[in-house]
């Protein structure tokens, strides 16, 4: 009887661990393969069967190469893309956080007519697929004569702003009303209450939503591809990578693409690691009334 129970317990634990391993493999394998491929030369890439680590084609010894990385890091297109992406993603994030926290304060803490409709309108904006607004936006941008970078920053707000607003609204709503009232009695104007009392308390949520907005803007491809078609110097990293050309016609420089993709991920990983603690706090804090 007892033995039976322990066997089923063992099976359960084994099953659970297998699930974890499977999920980890599912999530991490593409990244591992990108790193693996980025360390291979052209000839190593086309070895069959494909090797799990870069190996010499003849001796099969472990021989990684960094030539893809040096090629990418000396490529002006890629470096310019990196700079463009930084500018665009950072501006998008900052603007989305500023506008989003203003809106969230109003939606979460102030009473006014039309609050609910406003919330749903904001949510509805995220429902349109990017492709449907693309042509319209392109027409607007050409009509207004906006530069590619500016148009990317503003169009990225279409998906970052509703998201930051919604998450921050629930966070603001969770802050006790008494704090606001206390500040009011202490003599603070609504803006001072927002800036001095509520905003510092929403810092974890700001970091989390900001980071997610940054990632979304950093990885965005469709708008970037379209809006930079007239101005190649404004290409962001995803577009720049897609335009990588091989040494000869029709050659796809896989190694360099993979090296670039790996490099592009690094800033995101670094950001996540820096704000790690705050992110966990931010993701859960809005849910429970503080």
């Amino acid at each position, binding site marked *: 009887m007892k033995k039976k129970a322990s066997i089923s317990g063992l099976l359960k634990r084994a099953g659970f661990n297998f699930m974890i391993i499977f999920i980890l493999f599912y999530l991490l394998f593409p990244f591992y393969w990108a790193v693996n491929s980025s360390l291979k030369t052209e000839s190593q890439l086309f070895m069959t069967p494909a090797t799990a680590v870069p190996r010499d084609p003849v001796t099969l010894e472990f021989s990684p190469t960094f030539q893809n990385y040096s090629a990418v890091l000396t490529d002006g297109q890629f470096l310019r893309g990196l700079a463009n992406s930084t500018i665009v993603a950072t501006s998008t994030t900052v603007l989305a956080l500023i506008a989003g926290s203003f809106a969230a304060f109003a939606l979460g803490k102030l009473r006014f007519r039309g609050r609910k409709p406003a919330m749903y309108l904001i949510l509805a904006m995220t429902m349109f697929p990017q492709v449907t607004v693309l042509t319209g936006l392109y027409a607007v941008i050409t009509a207004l004569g906006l530069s590619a970078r500016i148009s990317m920053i503003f169009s990225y707000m279409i998906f970052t702003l509703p998201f930051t607003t919604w998450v921050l609204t629930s966070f603001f709503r969770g802050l006790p009303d*008494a*704090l606001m*009232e206390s*500040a*009011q*009695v*202490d003599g*603070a*104007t609504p803006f001072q209450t927002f800036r*001095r009392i509520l905003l510092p308390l929403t810092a974890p949520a700001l970091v989390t939503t900001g980071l997610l907005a940054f990632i979304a803007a950093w990885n965005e491809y469709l708008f970037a591809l379209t809006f930079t078609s007239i101005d190649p110097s404004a290409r962001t990293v995803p577009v720049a990578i897609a335009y990588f050309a091989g040494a000869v016609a029709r050659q796809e420089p896989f190694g360099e693409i993979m090296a670039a993709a790996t490099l592009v991920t690094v800033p995101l990983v670094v950001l996540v690691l820096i704000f790690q603690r705050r992110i966990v706090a931010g993701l859960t804090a809005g849910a429970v009334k503080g």
Partner: protein
Amino acid sequence: MASLNLINLNKIYPNGVHAVKDVSIEIEDKEFVVLVGPSGCGKSTVLRMIAGLEEISSGELYIDDVMVNDMAPKDRDIAMVFQNYALYPHMSIYDNMGFGLKLRKMPKDQIKKNVDEAAKILGLEDLLDRKPKELSGGQRQRVALGRAIVRDPKVFLMDEPLSNLDAKLRVQTRAELSKLHLRLETTFIYVTHDQTEAMTMGTRIVVLKDGVVHQVADPETLYNSPVNRFVASFIGSPQMNFIEARITESNDTVSIGYKGGSVELNPKKAAQLKEKGYTRKDVVLGIRPEHIDITAADDSEQYDALVEVIELLGSDTYLFLDIAGDAVIARVNPALNVRVHDRVRVQFTLDKLHLFDSETEEALLQ
């Protein structure tokens, strides 16, 4: 330091709830006024209207003869202590207390002087660098008070500031608040649902129920001459006993008869009743537990009540009596030798008797 005048204040919420009905109170300078009543009686709403956190639906509110109905809270020069203290979690205790002064653009050294002084009064000197979450409930409560004190406001508003403290600390803080009131010489308006807090601290008490003011009086008057049955039952613990009774008149005497017996009124009270036309009428007799005399019945045939439960409190003993079907609580000397199921004789202290109209519940005797 300020006087306040509330004239026919009303609060009607958008959903139609009429939370405060025609509340009129005149509050003099340096008074400690306590608004007391059961939960949902509108006492907090009145306080929030004074603070400016709640709009006044109709009526007028004056602070120092200035109408403040449409004045923002920050311009009213009031300070408020909230039930859950509402300290700013991200600021140190020093910054919490100095926040209001900083907003008023007070010079830094002056802020420091005020905060240090308030901290000294409240015994918070060693905690000024800490964050609120590192403090105990009692300490946080004092910080909330300190935040109000440093501002030196015209009026102190307090919304159940003791309800989050444990019983022992509450008793202690009650005395401290009274001392603080004497020291600061400022008008205090205090909201609570606890009649003990009201009786111990208030120089004047406002009893509210369902948004209506029932009685405004000092603690002694409130205890001795409640204007109606609600006030009589709300003030005092254990609460006043109520017994259904009937006024009878024979020859020159007026007496109150109830199921378990009758009491004869003195001529003065009898005259009061006659004047109001209350003879041969059903009334409710009210008698406080401490105004009932109990003696052991020496003759088992001659008794008034049966002892059902005995509660020993050390300083007092409460007897739960059955007087011919009416449940009555009596507070007696612990030295009295009675046991459960004993038969006892009961005597009401006549001049402490209250009578209420059965329908309107108004008090009939003064």
